[in-house]
């Protein structure tokens, strides 16, 4: 067995540009219907949202809304595995961008990540979504490409559910990634 020692390179040098930065994080201390990230600066190239979700009742799905815009500008195409078969489908003209489809669990947290590319640009906004929801005998793994057909820069993100609420202990963190 090879034991690997910690690297001495554990901190960035002060004069080194930071390319991956935390913008904001929320850990729920009590149940909440939504989590909002607001006043997102346009100074990054891409955004990455990481959610470890816990839920007060089963069955709902998690979705996000950009800029409080619930007009029918969201679409998505996904590939999914449910432990038995693989499938693919799409949604168009939606009022939000759905992150998972399988129904949330009250006992097992899920992992959801959303990479949002060129969020501050003037073209439509593409995102790559991962949903990892193994439930020890059930659950699913899903990869989704999302599209928000707006040329407006994204300055806020709202996480909410189709039903139920997010439980205490849910963690949502928004990172900014710089290309320059």
């Amino acid at each position, binding site marked *: 067995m090879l034991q690997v020692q910690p690297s001495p390179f554990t901190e960035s040098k002060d004069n080194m540009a930071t390319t991956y930065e935390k913008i904001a994080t929320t850990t729920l201390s009590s149940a909440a219907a939504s989590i909002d990230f607001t006043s997102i600066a346009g100074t990054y190239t891409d955004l990455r949202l990481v959610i470890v979700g816990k839920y007060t009742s089963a069955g709902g799905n998690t979705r996000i809304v950009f800029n409080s815009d619930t007009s029918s500008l969201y679409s998505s195409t996904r*590939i999914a595995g449910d432990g038995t078969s*693989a499938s693919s489908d799409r949604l168009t003209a939606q009022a939000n961008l759905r992150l998972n489809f399988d129904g949330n669990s009250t006992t097992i947290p899920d992992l959801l990540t959303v990479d949002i590319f060129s969020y501050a640009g003037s073209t439509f906004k593409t995102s790559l979504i991962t949903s990892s929801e193994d439930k020890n005998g059930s659950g699913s793994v899903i990869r989704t490409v999302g599209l928000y057909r707006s040329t407006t820069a994204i300055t806020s993100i709202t996480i909410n559910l189709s039903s139920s609420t997010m439980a205490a202990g849910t963690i949502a963190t928004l990172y900014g990634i710089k290309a320059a």
Partner: protein
Amino acid sequence: MATYTLISSNTLASSTSTVTFSSIPSTYTDLCIRGSVRLASAVQIGTLYMRINAATTTYSWTRLRGNGATASSSRGTTGTEIQIGLQTGASATANTFGSFELYIPNYAGSTNKPFSSFAVAENNSTTAGQSAIETFAELWSTTSAITSLTFSDYGTPDNMLSGSSFYLYGISNA
């Protein structure tokens, strides 16, 4: 503290049966492991596995796989280690390695540990099933903090070849 920090890395100088990251500090929020592996087994592709804290129970996974011809899904709930994904083996095209990425959020927390894996093995084979792309929903149903990760081809068992590499990053939201 930097947001995205290299904790440790290892590029194999010789064939090795296991690679372990031990004494992982709890000072980060999430872990990300990126690797590139070629197995010593005489196969085109073979599965890389991982054990957490040397545990041999409470692993489960749901997998989505494409093999160049068809897409499929399956799951496991009883393994003594958890699948990370298919990597190239010694019979694959020379100099080709598989690649994988694991993302483990809230690894030091006191809840069950869901995480994701994305693994690929491409070797310019014209035969379906000799390359693969896979993504996993993984779960370690344990409330203990993660302090060590061990990678191995437990099934055979066999070695990982020289040149295989592993990088452990800590991500902080502090």
